[in-house]
């Protein structure tokens, strides 16, 4: 992120230190993670030490200090989804992609995350991929759902295989 982009974000909140959470959220939304340089610039701009920024950035689930994959697979593990078998959906994704929650595939295509409740309990178990909801998930549906988001090469292979 450039200096001016950081400045635009801090000015949106009148350079108020108390709005740091919102500023971090704006950086996260743009970059999909919190790059170290961006945090350093933010610290200089607001005149606060890095340890305070890190403390906040590591406390909240919404932030990530490492880059995320192109597609974010978010499985809801709220109670309603849990009793309908959400953990088995997570396990199956783990088997398919080889990543655990919080991790990103080597090709940077997928990041797997779990969330405590998406508030779409009626359709549970729910997974959201890039904000698009997939309701009534089951381990058997995982492969097909992920296929739509596979990088081009794999998608082609999948299509060929089908033909």
């Amino acid at each position, binding site marked *: 992120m450039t200096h001016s982009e950081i400045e635009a974000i801090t000015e949106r909140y009148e350079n108020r230190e*108390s709005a740091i*959470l919102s500023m971090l959220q704006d950086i996260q939304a743009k970059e999909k993670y919190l790059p170290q340089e961006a945090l350093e610039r933010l610290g200089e701009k607001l005149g606060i030490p890095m340890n305070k920024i890190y403390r906040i950035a590591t406390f*909240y689930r919404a932030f990530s200090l490492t880059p995320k994959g192109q597609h974010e697979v978010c499985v809801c*593990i709220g*109670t309603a989804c849990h009793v309908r078998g959400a953990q088995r959906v997570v396990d199956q994704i783990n088997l398919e992609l080889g990543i655990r929650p919080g991790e990103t595939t080597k090709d940077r295509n997928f990041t797997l995350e779990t969330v405590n409740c998406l508030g*779409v*309990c009626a359709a549970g178990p729910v997974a959201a991929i890039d904000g698009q909801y997939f309701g009534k998930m089951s381990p058997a549906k995982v492969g097909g759902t992920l296929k739509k988001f596979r990088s081009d090469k794999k998608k082609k292979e999948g299509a060929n295989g089908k033909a």
Partner: protein
Amino acid sequence: MARLSSPQELGKYRDEILSKRNPDQPLITVCGGTGCHASGCHAVVDAFRKVLQEKAKGNGIGLRVTGCHGFCERGPLVVIHPKMVLYQKVKPEDAPAIFQETVLNGKVLENLLYEHPATGEKIATEEKVPFYQKQRRIILGNNGNIDPTQIEDYLAVGGYRALAKALFSMKPEEIIGEVKKANLRGRGGGGFPAGLKWEQCRNAPSDIKYLVCNADEGDPGAYMDRSLLEGNPHSALEGMIIGAYAIGSHEGYIFVRHEYPLALENIGIAIQQARELGLLGRDILGSGFHFDIKISRGGGAFVAGESTALMATIEGNVGEPRAKHIHTVVSGLHDKPTNLNNVETWANVPVIINEGADWYGRIGTEGSKGTKIFSLVGKVNNTGLVEVPMGMSLREIVYDIGGGIPGGKRFKAVQTGGPSGGCIPESMIDLPVDFDRLTEVGSMMGSGGMIVMDESTCMVDVAKYFMNFLKDESCGKCTSCREGTKRMYELLADITEGRGTMDHLCLLEDLGWVTAEASLCALGGTAPNPVLSTIRYFRDEYKEHIINKQCPAKVCRQLLQYRILSDVCTSCGRCSKVCSVKAITGKQKTKKEKGEPFEIDAEKCIRCGMCFESCKFEAIEVQ
């Protein structure tokens, strides 16, 4: 749009809006709540838009995307006014037929109606559907009638009338008196009397006072605040402005959970529109009273829903709770008196002011007045949001409204109160649901999540699930909570993975007690509830795991054995294809050969259950 500078102008503006609306004119409303979103309501809205553009230009037939109707299980939902015909599970390709037959010709399309599960009777209107019949939707009711992004819709159903009444014909003390008399108790968790809180905040000496709306609905399995903010944001806003006037606050915050983007968007629009009309900001409705609201976003931490942690988050600090030797109503946000209530509580305020405390007090039980919105989810036929008078029995909620348990399975328990609550067993299904009764049986109201569990839900697994949640969400400030939740989780993991002993149970009970007693905030203070309540009511199930190393509900993976029934197996080979660890072998049948039954190698099997799920002949048994 001009600012409204008196209650008369507000009344006039409302009349103007109503005069332009003909209640007999056909109107198509589509539910735009998140539940219906997930089942594809967007495409349905687009389809209706297209049909209207092609066939009904300029003849006044309206299309409205509303908030959540509650019956999420059956979404996308469409209601055709004025006859209020309810169509469920509507697909985009149904739009032309609905327009042609129902909107233009007044005929009802039978295939889209809700069918009574017992009698098979087709039901045409919302009010006759059993899911809605026993509900009393005084807070949620308008969700289905208004477009949350149009303040005119809220004004048309009588919105901001309570605000005008409060500002111009009631003294702040009178408002507090009314809320106290109505015995409105906080809907966010603890059930503290809101009127009392307001009074303490009003009496606290300070020039600046803050008012906060808690929309950090963190309980997994609860989404009523989300639906209210998404579907009827002005109702909470109006409650807040009335509260601010009563308390003497001029600055407020709405703290919205980061996982709720649509709620964030809709409340932002609502604040903007209310400001433009002079219902928020300086000199509200010409009364001289000013109050404005800022939106604050959460960062995805459950503990930040606790009042002191929430205030720390607004201040830009990490969301750690502090000791409440001095209550937040005296010293809260920025060390000033702060009054915090959640979305549903605020949305109750306009109703109390409009209808009066006496009317309100006639709904509910002795200690808990009014209605409560529950998210009825889990193993129940009609999942969705339900609003019922306090004191309705669990049986009525689960069976009459919820339609019972799917697949003919047996009801086992209801979990209420989120991670702070507990599990209520089948023997207590006639329990009237209110604040005090739920606490008596070792659970709590919480924000209103009601997760139904059936015989295929393992109670030890449920306890482990909550402890996993709590150990992750504990902020770490108190050792008892940080370590207690972690160790309880490990003990529960031992039990579910076959390493449990009876000593584990004693340890769990001891640890639970210490965690509750020695932790600062409610997260730690109530953390053992899911464990203690399941041990209390489902001890036999724990013993089954510990002594016989079996999970009766067939959930705990490490205790399961998958086996193929050789006399049922058709040798189709499907299970072997889906097995990711190649643990299933056999001879697949071909056109020429018969094949041989398949077998599972228990050593290799990782018990993922894919074979069980993929078998079409029920040839796989779980033990």
